[in-house]
């Protein structure tokens, strides 16, 4: 600011020491005068820019929906994406797709923000050279000429493992043309334990597919199938369907979980055993010994005979074994992805012995490479060292960050003469490469994918590429010297061999699945000969007393690929409720042993690396075990991801990619110098029954023990006038896993801003829907109960009585309305809300963001300004849209016609929404269940959101 241009401001403000009262008043006064003048100037008239020729599929003002597929970890999940005048704004599940069944998880929901990320790579560029695709192609691509064995030597592709038929066919075609071209598949999301386990048990690598809807007993050996599996949305739904109570007589499945860290699957367990991940193999062996008769496991008897000492593991194993035996053919044992082959082999053996193969589990030919990704990358490193690679094209992923530390991959690829990286971000790998190429987001590209069970579907773009990007398939085709180079042409060419292709193309794009493409089940016969060696090898491990360290994909950033997504960064971790960062998770005893508390640091050294990371003490975490979430401490050029959390990859090596049995762990007392941004620091309900729970037996015997009747004090307030539909919501805590898909869905639908780490530390997070997590049960082995909490739409709403400007009022259809334009920001309502669900805009969170992010905003919802309150509206924009639709068609609203964003996303269908005016509506029926209750109902707020108490189904043989 120069003095000559702004004399007024200069005189008063620049010399801060000599500001006189007069100067101050003069500045303020002139400011007010100018502001007043501004009010007299008529705002310029807006322009309306209609289409020159309107595309027939677009009706301005009406959303269109297209089916597409998002690929993650090599497998596709079918989605339906909402599009507003050509802008994708919201991701929903596709009910026809086997991996979605109508639901969408946090990554799918948040992926729409990734599309508009301002940090995306925009143009192909060469470090210190010319840019442009043509220059890249002339540098790297093979010519389409006949080839020969020598052509292509030195060219190497590094991809993420994928089941996409198109990508795999392109690779086959390139290999056929140029056999010398190398391909390597690497991703921390690829796990090969299951295939190794199948190789041991059945003689060849196979991929298991479970059917939890037919399982009465489910045993998870460190498997987070409800939240961290390519099929988790489907499994969560099937699991929930197996324990959804409509009456007291309904049956429930029973879930046994043994795991080290608390996962959402562990949180749903009827019996959870917290154990070091490295000891799961012992429990699995004991389970096999206890379940099978000696005849069934005769070859194994010498291995199984180790005496078991009495302990929680023993009783857990005994109860699980008894249940498994009783539910022959209706049970399933699932081994965790990070577990070694031996555990998978035992799970396979148990499933075979119990007759589950063919009922609750089937096997298909593997869709991903069976070679361990770390192993594949080692081979590539060796090739680089041997100077056999002089052109390396990295298609997606981020190996410079995620490769095992002992490979020193980042340094190695710098030795390659030419290297190119295709991806969305200027991440660590992009910084190591000479060429950086803009990749395409799945919402911009054509392609195809296979779901975990082999079902194929097309990837269909909803928007023209925002930048000058190319898809993985296109770059493969161009660089491999194949003639057709547009992904659209390539995918059509591949599938055009199918009979009646035109009809198949049209139908598959509309439905989002290509019918009858699921892999056929293959027979799998148990062969002990293969199981014995892996089991024996597992036995060789000496009993350990050291503290083990395990790596987990983070439930919000996975391996770090979503670290630049602010929605996911600010999403509270399902168990720790930590946002904007990661922390080492450990049990209370271990923390005591290391002499630390939550907020202190642990220092871990292994394989030549050392990290220091804040710790969070988690009740129910296995003792002598530390869990490190991957995916933070990123050092690329992504502005959101950079330096958030701690990078734990430096101690992750090829030899121990998931479990380090013997790292050097040291506790460091740091106090709370770097406070952790958690949204809920509190573990318990302090004796109040906020999230109610009880056993199935107790519920059947007397539901009043779980939901006791309570008296409501007489109210002084007039009841509000009611007319028409009466909106209400029911949330079934029995099937809510706490996966948080609803939180992101709400954020996407309702234009909810993020506040950043500092904001969370000041308790200013804006989520309209949060998930409260409570620990119940015994302190040494607690249960977790997750309770989604949003505006309860009280009929006698405490917020309404205290608002001095009538900014929150009641509608005749039972909504607690928030009128932003009346709100003056007194925050009385928030202080008077017993549920603490109202959020205040301390700043203009939504207005300072780059313009490209505006494209994601839902045009049906106001973007709130600084100084106003906001909260869940029951997705009133959806209610009104459906109401208008019904009214123009001259009919009443049907039950299930209004679907809220949270309800739509929920994988387990825990949320029911509808009108109480219709006594037969699903929500009315759910409220008649004996386990239906209102949170803090004794206050007389009469909330419209009711909860169904969590019922769990413990074994009668075990105490809980």
């Amino acid at each position, binding site marked *: 600011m120069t003095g000559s241009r702004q004399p007024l401001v200069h005189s008063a403000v620049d010399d801060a020491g000599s500001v006189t009262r007069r100067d101050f008043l003069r500045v303020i006064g002139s400011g007010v005068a100018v502001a007043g003048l501004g009010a007299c100037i*008529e705002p310029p*008239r*807006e*322009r*309306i*820019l*209609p*289409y*020159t*020729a*309107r595309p027939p599929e677009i*009706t*301005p*003002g*009406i959303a269109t929906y297209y089916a597409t597929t998002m690929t993650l970890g090599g497998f596709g999940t079918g989605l339906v994406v909402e599009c507003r005048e050509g802008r994708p704004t919201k991701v929903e599940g596709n009910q026809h797709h086997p991996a979605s069944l109508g639901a969408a998880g946090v990554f799918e929901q948040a992926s729409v923000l990734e599309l508009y990320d301002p940090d995306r790579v925009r143009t192909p560029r060469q470090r210190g050279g010319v840019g442009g695709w043509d220059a890249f192609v002339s540098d790297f691509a093979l010519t389409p000429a006949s080839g020969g064995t020598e052509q292509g030597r030195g060219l190497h592709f590094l991809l993420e493992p994928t089941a996409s038929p198109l990508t795999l066919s392109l690779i086959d075609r390139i290999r056929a043309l140029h056999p010398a071209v190398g391909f390597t598949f690497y991703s921390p999301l690829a796990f090969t334990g299951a295939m190794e386990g199948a190789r041991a048990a059945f003689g060849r690598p196979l991929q298991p597919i479970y059917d939890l809807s037919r399982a009465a007993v489910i045993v998870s050996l460190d498997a987070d199938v409800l939240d961290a599996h390519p099929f988790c949305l489907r499994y969560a739904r099937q699991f929930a369907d197996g324990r959804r109570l409509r009456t007291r007589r309904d049956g429930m499945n029973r879930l046994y979980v043994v795991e080290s860290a608390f996962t959402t699957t562990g949180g749903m367990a009827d019996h959870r055993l917290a154990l070091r991940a490295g000891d799961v193999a012992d429990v699995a062996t004991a389970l096999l010994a206890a379940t099978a008769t000696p005849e069934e496991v005769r070859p194994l008897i010498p291995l199984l005979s180790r005496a078991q000492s009495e302990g929680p593991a023993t009783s857990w194993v005994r109860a699980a074994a008894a249940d498994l035996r009783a539910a022959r053919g209706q049970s399933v044992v699932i081994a965790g992805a990070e577990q070694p082959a031996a555990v998978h082999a035992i799970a396979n053996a148990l499933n075979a012995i119990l007759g589950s193969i063919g009922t609750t589990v089937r096997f298909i030919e593997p869709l991903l490479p069976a070679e361990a990704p770390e192993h594949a990358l080692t081979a590539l490193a060796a090739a680089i060292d041997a100077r056999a690679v002089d052109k390396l094209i990295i298609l997606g992923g981020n190996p410079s960050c995620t490769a095992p530390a002992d490979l020193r991959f980042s340094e190695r690829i710098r030795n390659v003469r030419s290297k190119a990286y295709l991806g969305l971000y200027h991440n660590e790998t992009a910084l190591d490469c000479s060429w950086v190429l803009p990749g395409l987001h799945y919402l911009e590209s054509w392609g195809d994918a296979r779901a975990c069970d082999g079902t194929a579907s097309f990837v269909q773009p909803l928007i023209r590429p925002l930048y000058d990007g190319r898809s993985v398939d296109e770059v493969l085709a161009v660089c491999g010297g194949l003639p057709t180079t547009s992904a659209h042409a390539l995918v059509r060419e591949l599938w055009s061999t199918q009979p009646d292709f035109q009809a198949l193309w049209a139908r598959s794009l509309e439905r989002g699945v290509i019918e009858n493409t699921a892999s056929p089940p293959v027979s799998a016969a148990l062969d002990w000969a293969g199981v014995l060696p892996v089991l024996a090898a597992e036995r060789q491990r000496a009993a350990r007393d050291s503290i083990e360290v395990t790596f987990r994909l983070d439930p919000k950033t996975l391996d770090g690929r979503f670290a630049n997504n602010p929605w996911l960064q600010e999403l509270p971790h399902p168990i720790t409720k930590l946002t904007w960062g990661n922390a080492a998770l450990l049990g209370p005893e271990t923390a005591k042993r290391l002499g630390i508390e939550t907020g202190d640091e642990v220092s871990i050294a292994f394989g030549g690396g050392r990290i220091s990371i804040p710790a969070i003490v988690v009740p129910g975490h296995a003792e002598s075990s530390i869990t490190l979430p991957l995916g933070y401490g990123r050092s690329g050029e992504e502005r959101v991801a950079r330096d958030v959390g701690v990078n734990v990859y430096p101690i992750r090596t090829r030899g121990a990619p998931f479990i380090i049995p013997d790292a050097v762990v040291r506790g460091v007392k740091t106090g709370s110098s770097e406070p952790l941004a958690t949204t809920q620091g509190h573990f318990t309900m302090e004796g109040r029954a906020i999230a109610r729970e009880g056993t199935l037996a107790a519920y059947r015997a007397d539901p009043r023990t779980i939901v006791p009747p309570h008296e409501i004090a007489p109210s002084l307030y007039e009841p509000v006038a009611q007319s*028409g539909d009466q909106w209400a919501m029911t949330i079934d805590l029995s099937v809510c896993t706490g996966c948080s898909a609803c939180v992101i869905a709400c954020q996407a639908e309702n234009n909810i801003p993020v506040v950043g780490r500092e904001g969370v530390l000041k308790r200013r997070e804006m989520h309209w829907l949060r998930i409260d997590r409570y620990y119940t049960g015994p302190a040494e082995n607690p249960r977790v109960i997750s309770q989604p909490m949003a505006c309860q739409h009280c009929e006698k709403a405490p917020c309404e009585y205290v608002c001095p400007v009538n900014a929150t*009022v009641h*509608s*005749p*259809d039972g*909504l607690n*309305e928030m*009128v*932003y*334009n009346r709100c003056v920001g007194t925050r009385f309502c928030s202080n008077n809300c017993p549920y603490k669900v109202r959020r205040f805009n301390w700043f203009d969170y939504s207005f300072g963001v780059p313009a490209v992010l505006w494209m994601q905003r839902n045009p*049906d*919802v*106001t973007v709130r300004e600084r100084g106003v309150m906001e909260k869940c*509206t029951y997705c*009133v*924009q959806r209610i*009104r849209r459906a109401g*208008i639709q019904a*009214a*123009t068609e*001259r009919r009443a609203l049907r039950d299930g016609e209004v679907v809220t964003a949270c309800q739509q996303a929920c994988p387990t269908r825990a949320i029911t929404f509808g009108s109480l005016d219709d006594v037969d509506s699903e929500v009315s029926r759910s409220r008649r269940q004996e386990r239906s209750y209102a949170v803090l109902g004794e206050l007389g707020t009469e909330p419209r959101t009711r909860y169904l108490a969590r019922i769990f189904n413990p074994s009668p043989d075990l105490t809980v």
Partner: protein
Amino acid sequence: MPALFPKWSDSLLRACFVAFVVSAVALPTFAMIWVRTPFVSGKGDPVRQPIEFDHRHHVADDAIDCRYCHDLAERSRYAGVPPTSRCLNCHNQIWNDSPLLATVWTSYFRDEPIPWVRVHRLPDFVYFDHSIHVNKGVGCESCHGRVDRMARVYQVAPLSMSWCLDCHRSPERHLRPLDAITAMGWRPPRPQEEFGRTLRTLYGVREITHCSACHR
């Protein structure tokens, strides 16, 4: 001791007090009246458009239904400003060499939209929906006036919230049969209040005055 101030300064002081009290009331009142004047609401101000499109001619002389161009009014929030191609449905035959249509041709062949100037502007926090109004018997004329008499279209209604609520509180005063939605200068066969009440029952028109009906 002589008075420091002359006698009249007492009167001045009193006058100042009175002026202060009066202005404390008058200034906000003035501001509130001011925002409701046509000067701010834009009412009655014929808007110059990039093309001298004459509604009088198209509506009155040619008797083209409103919905031919504003085709979304029955099914979308927006009535829809017609795409350029719509103009050319007729004008590729009629007056196709008129210099007045040069902008239209340019727009069509360059694929650049015609920058029409907005006449009716609602604040961003208002979610007005054309389809429900049109389907419940609110005619175009009720809000937009006699467009068939406008050379340049101007805003007839103040588009203030109280104006919306006038109708929302007693819709019968503005209802007409669905087959007369786009008619200009329509007269009720019976007294409007009585006829409107019949239509109100027939079309199931409710008095909707809660906030979230329009503000979300």
